[in-house]
């Protein structure tokens, strides 16, 4: 089967990031492959290693995002498509899914995988939007995936339990990072990725975004807390006292 994984380059949230004039200021070099998408790539590789098939990736992003495609190729994907947009292009999940849908109308795939959410915006909309635009059955928040002939069996983490869902292909699945630990590319993989094809296509028409970010704001700061001193039995007694009196939560 042909798997195509939608991947996004995101800022590394563990890097120092500041707000300046309502905008995020960070080192443009500190970017990573969205962790949820990395799990999706890993899962596609595992399934094709078991059952045959191929894995491709597609990314929408500025020029510099090519390195994120290379990362997926180094993990083992065979080919990448890069829909190139300007650094400051305004995209929301709706416009991203529209561009991806246009791509898949032509390209086709038996299984489309996305991350359950982008690590930077935590929107979590793109997958289901894309499936709906393509008229595909889908499952979100997958923590497990298996292939039975032409059917995918998804273990989905729901609110109160895990739902085991059988999806006929073609279909779309959004992946949680609780699914697996993505492989670290080997040196051979990294070298090989340099020779793998990346199809770069400039995006001419970016669909207008109906959701805009007006500005970024710091989170409200929490009152500084306090560390309780003393022997363990004193700490235990004091915290219970504080929870009863000062915090009144008991």
């Amino acid at each position, binding site marked *: 089967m042909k798997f195509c994984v939608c991947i996004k380059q995101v*800022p590394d949230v563990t890097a120092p*990031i500041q707000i300046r004039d309502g905008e*995020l200021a960070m080192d443009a070099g500190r970017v990573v492959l969205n962790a949820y998408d990395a799990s999706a790539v890993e899962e596609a590789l595992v399934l094709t290693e078991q059952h045959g098939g191929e894995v491709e990736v597609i990314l929408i992003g500025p020029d510099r995002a090519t390195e994120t495609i290379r990362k997926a190729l180094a993990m083992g994907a065979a080919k990448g498509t890069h829909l190139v947009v300007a650094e400051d292009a305004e995209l929301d*999940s*709706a416009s991203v*899914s529209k561009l991806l849908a246009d791509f898949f109308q032509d390209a086709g795939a038996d299984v489309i995988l996305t991350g359950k959410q982008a690590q*930077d915006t*935590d*929107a*979590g909309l*793109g997958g*289901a*939007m894309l*499936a*709906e635009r393509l008229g595909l*059955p*889908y*499952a*979100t*928040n997958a923590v497990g995936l298996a292939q039975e002939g032409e059917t995918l069996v998804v273990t989905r*983490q*729901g*609110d*109160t*339990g*895990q*739902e*085991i*869902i*059988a*999806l*006929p292909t073609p279909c779309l699945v959004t992946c949680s*990072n*609780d699914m697996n630990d993505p492989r670290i590319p080997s040196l051979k993989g990294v070298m090989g990725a340099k020779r793998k094809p990346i199809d770069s296509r400039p995006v001419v028409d970016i669909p207008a975004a*109906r*959701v*805009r*970010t*007006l500005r*970024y*704001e*710091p*989170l409200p700061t*929490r*009152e500084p*807390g*306090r*560390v*309780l001193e003393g022997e*363990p*039995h004193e*700490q*235990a*007694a004091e915290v*219970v006292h504080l*929870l*009863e009196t000062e*915090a009144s*939560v*008991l």
Partner: protein
Amino acid sequence: MSTILSFIAIQNGKPTRSSFEGLSRARHLAAQHGHTLAAVVLAPDASAFTDEIARYGAQTIYTVSDPIFAQHMNAPVVRALEAVIAQVQPALVVFPSSEGVKDVLGALAVRTHAAVLPDVASFDLADGGVEATRPVMASKFYARVRAEGEPVLVSVRSGSYEATESPADATVEALPFSFDESSLKQTLREVVGAATGGIDLADARVVISAGRGVKDEAGQHLVQELADVLGAAIGASRAVVENGMFPATAQIGQTGKVVSPDLYIGVGISGAIQHVAGMVNSRVIVAINTNPDAPIFEVATYGIVGDLYTVLPLLIEELKKAKAVAA
């Protein structure tokens, strides 16, 4: 005048608290802007919940009853809500941000041509659009966002608003629904590990959250005992979900659930940014950790530097004493 429609999610046979938080917020906005307040509930017998929903002030309650809603499946939920939205023509639809809602929101937005603001911490109607605040970058920052058009779909993080009652004489309207199951391209084979009984994490007032410091059965037992004394739900970090010590439904954080209880007690949790993303809005945070430099202490109201295996038994004793005095 238009309508604000609030979606009531049913879990374990009852409406979730976060659904009523959303409905309460919607009621305030409706009053402020002169809109009508409506609610929608999907269930095998949705009429069973209308009395409770009416207590939160919905003027019209749309019920869609069908056995297919006994288990969560995205396709029938999307179809049913699409039909309700087509009929009601709301300006705004408010959802609690549950896994069930996350599963349908994107598809529903496409089908209803709606702009959508997922997982917001606050929202308002503003000049023909909706403005909201949502945590981004693993809850390091808030993004102030604006959506244009009608309807706008908004899903709200649990604990963002208070659920407050304001009883109204509600009109109940049962909407016809037929879902051709043969058109359902997917099959739900089974639901495993479904929590029965226990206190739902997202709705809990007190949460005990276990991390990698909890190393064995004795540790699990202490966590359970502490939860029992406090009537708390048990949450967990990714580390102990991954190693199989706690169920995946217990995971709190960026990948897991968002909780905002009155009291969160983190036991042997380091406080990685992706975990904190799911609990930083708890009213009071207690952290128990052997490492004084653990980042969890930066957000903790009360910190105890110590070994959980020593501290928890003492804490459980103290709590039992306090409960006995109170009783």
